[in-house]
């Protein structure tokens, strides 16, 4: 019996253990042979003999089970080890692309205004003089047209110089109350370090009944919006001039690069100009035949926001599809 026990405890693989199991516990195995001897044992000794055999069998079974558990565990361990890989090799597979920072900034701006129940409106890129200028209180030869170098088409069409014509289209197509934004590409004939012939704007317009919309309302929404975009910045409204609003203002935020100390980006002023806005000029309402209404409008350049938010150094780079820039936004 001793040597049988040794065989079990020294089995070195599941295969040899299985062989041993058959040799021991099989129908023609060693235990079966021992039990066969029982019939030859004389009557009075039979009981003791059988008890001894059962004890040995139970002992062997126990040893076998223990050995099996151990070898099984070792076997799984071996399989797992064999499948080991260096996971760190699979870092950064660059399988995802990226949104363009200007478009992503536009998304962020649009999200804000959608949350405030503004509708999105759109209009053609090639506009006519009426929608792009005339209706916006920019009569022909008005000096304010000088502010916007315009691309003209031979049939009198103009590439829209701002998103403001969408205001006019929306007012003509719908009725107050209006609460809209118009995001999109605009065009000006200007090409240097800080100007590209195409860029993007978002225009906003709110129209309500007469006496309902005030400059104070404009201050509230734009301050909130700029805090949403830039966090805890200081905000400054400066009176300014736009033909389609009166009173008008430009809005500055405290410089996010130097926190108002003065740096290259803010030309040492501590302020960054980010928005134009105002109360809609009565001449604009007249052009769309609105009476007894009041409203405010605002507009901003998306490239400027994107460049400020992401500290992008070069405007023109944004239009070149340069993946060295785009990959950074993955």
């Amino acid at each position: 019996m001793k040597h049988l026990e040794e065989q079990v405890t020294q089995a070195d693989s599941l295969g040899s253990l299985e062989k041993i199991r058959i040799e021991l516990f099989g129908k023609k195995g060693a235990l079966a042979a021992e039990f066969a001897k029982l019939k030859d044992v004389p009557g009075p000794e039979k009981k003791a003999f059988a008890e001894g055999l059962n004890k040995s069998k139970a002992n062997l079974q126990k040893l076998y089970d223990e050995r099996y558990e151990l070898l099984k565990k070792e076997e799984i361990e071996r399989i797992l080890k064999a499948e080991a890989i260096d996971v760190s090799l699979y870092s950064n597979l660059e399988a995802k692309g990226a949104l363009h920072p200007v478009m992503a900034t536009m998304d962020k701006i649009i999200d804000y205004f959608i949350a405030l129940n503004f509708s999105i409106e759109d209009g053609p890129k090639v506009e006519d003089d009426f929608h792009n200028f005339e209706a916006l209180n920019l009569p022909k030869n008005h000096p304010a047209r000088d502010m916007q170098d315009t691309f003209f088409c031979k049939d009198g069409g103009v590439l829209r110089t701002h998103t403001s014509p969408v205001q006019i289209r929306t007012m003509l197509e719908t009725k107050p109350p209006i609460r809209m934004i118009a995001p999109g590409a605009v065009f000006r004939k200007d090409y240097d370090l800080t100007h590209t012939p195409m860029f993007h704007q978002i225009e906003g317009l709110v129209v309500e009944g007469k006496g309902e919309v005030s400059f104070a309302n404009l201050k509230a929404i734009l301050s909130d919006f700029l805090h949403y975009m830039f966090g805890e910045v200081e905000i400054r409204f400066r009176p300014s001039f736009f033909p389609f609003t009166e009173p008008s203002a430009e809005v500055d935020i405290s410089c996010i690069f130097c926190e108002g100390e003065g740096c290259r980006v803010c030309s040492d002023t501590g302020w960054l100009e980010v928005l134009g806005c105002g109360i809609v000029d009565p001449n604009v309402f007249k052009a769309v035949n609105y009476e007894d209404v009041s409203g405010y409008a605002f507009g901003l350049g998306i490239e400027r926001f994107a460049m400020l938010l992401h500290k992008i150094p070069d405007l023109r780079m944004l239009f070149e599809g340069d993946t060295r820039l785009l990959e950074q936004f993955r």
Partner: protein
Amino acid sequence: MIVTRTWLNNFIDISEVSNEKLYETFNSIGLEVDSIKTYHIPDKVVVGKVLSCEKHPDADKLNVCQIDIGNATRQIVCGAANVVDAEYVAVATIGAKLGDDFEIKHAKLRGVESEGMVCSASELGLPNLGDGIMILDESIGKLKLGKDLNEYDRVADTVIELELTANRGDCLSIYGVARDLSAALDIPLRVFDYESQNQEKIGLARVAELKASTKINGSLKYVMADVQELHTSFVFALRLAFIDATKENALANVVKYVTHTTGVVLRAYKTREMLVEEDDKITITASMEDEITHIEANGKPFSILGVSQNEESKADDETVKVLFEASYINPDTLVDAVAAKGLETDELYYNTSRGSEPDLSMGTKYLMYLLESYSGCNFFDGSLSLEEELESKIITINDREISELIGRKIDKAEILSILTSLGFRVQSSAEENFGATIPKFRHDIENIQDITEEIVRIIGIDNIEAKALKFAEAQRTNPTTQRYHAKKAIRQSAVAAGFYETVSYAFSDKSLLEKYEFPLIREELDIINPITEDLNTLRSTILINLLIASKRNVSYSKKSISLFEIGTIFDENRREKEVLSFIISGQKESENVTNNGKPAMIDFETFTKKLSAVIGDFQLRSNSQNNALIHPYQSADIIINDEVCGFMSKLHPTVADDFDLSDTFIAEISFDALIPQHINANAISKFQGVYKDLSLVVDKNLPYNQVSTAIESLNLPLLKKYYPVDVYEDASLEEQKSLTIRLFIQSLEGTLEDSSIEETVNTIVSSLEEAYGAKLR
């Protein structure tokens, strides 16, 4: 518009107002400060008087000067030629620091001791005032030898550049800015006046007359002077340099100086030779045609009111008798007329077109004051004027409406006081509505909102409390908003599929569009004034922009380029359409361990999978496009909802060469087709279905879509799905191929019987046999 502190001081006492306060005030009243700079003259630079000046014994170009600096006399060697004529100069004494590493020390110049330096303007950090050293005079104040130059505030002045908005022509002068500042700071404006002290004057009326032969729409005023010893004082020269407007001669400098100071548009003319013969009386006649007023003297035209002057009649320093013209015309009528006639305009037209100062006598008096006080000029007595009779513009306003627009209660008294300080005349009355008379210099004020803006400027936007607008209305998710959401979702999918979003100009190069056979906008609809030759038309495809971007990326050694863009394109009739365009070029994925650093080149299959990940299911059929980017044998129409909405293709190898690209695939799809459609769910079967593979031998050139169309037309109720899984060609099949289609057959009603499976399969086989001679393998 550039102003300086001391220049403003002529009209308003701002000596107690700090630079910070000025900066704040300008910004808050809508005169945006572009820059503010205080000039600081280095210490130990003092006023000196040149006592003598002798040639250096050993150097032709050097002078040895004895210079009195108050408490002592210094010998200084000076290289500037104009030191010979100089009396008062700026002397940098020993120890003065003119730069970070430039300190004045005792020196020996070619053997001669020199104890200091006579300075030029630029050496002191001032704007360049021409060659040589800076010659001082008492225009900066009483000159005291040895006094630090920095103590003269007209030299160490603060220069402020304002960015004026297009409506504020009234602030195109020192006087105009001072007037606005006076209202904001509540400091009185100093009114300028001048009476000539010269008693022996000839009356101007004796030598000249002015008449209008028609009604004219502007105002004119002429004065005349014998001009002698014309001198540009140091402060004039310095201030003109501060505003970067130094002119070609002393007379032009004076005229510019007066215009910049008062805002009155002034031009100077030669009288003799150009306008009249010697001793003739000058008859000036103004006549208007189509809103343009032409002015002539004795029949010779010399000026167009507010627009330009004849170049030949322009007075210069040689002119003895100069006729000065002050003019004003309301820009609202003038600019249209000038544009309609296409008239050439001179530099001063800018001031006129923005609204120049209408008080002409202030301009002529200031001119007279300067020329009689600082030069030896003698004016004729009196002036000749034609004044346009203009009715004053009156706007009816009320405090309620102004308060509503601002969103804060503004008292009537406050409105009255602000408007009065801005030069408006207001009739105070107990009525709710009251009239405000607009000053002539504010042609931009037209209605109550313009007036409100004036109130807002002066009370300051900071003093308006922000108030949220209450919302009470229906939601506004309109189709454009939904389209935006769809676009955002597609963009996000494209990013997930590994593409980078680009934004490119909506322009294109006509020659490239032509070369690659894309439509061109009809000539008569095209852009007149393109910015550059390579952006000379509106694009009819985004793909060329993407090719150019890819080429650029290749030049940065990129091996794998995946770009997409959603944008507007324009057809022949300039109709706008939004498309989604893709390009993928080079390796199909990044180099990494999964591909042993050797990823395969992009292929049709991978590109199609990526497209499908972005835009969902689509069908492909043989290409029907015909631009030159397309590879004739690896290209396809993209079909969504049974409509061709775009194409995809391998890039034609010759085009790939043009753009230095290796294997490249492109696609352009109409965005309209990608807007998600409403979906109704179909019933789902509870019963098991079976897959059956159908291997058919068909003609080699039979495209799969014809097979699928035939199967589709059978409308088999049990056939839930089918798709090609294998195509096999070999020599034994000759002109045929083996096509394996996997069918999924399932019933909604119950478990499938073998017979009904067989029936479905047989129907397909026999119909394909009939249509295309297909045989089971």
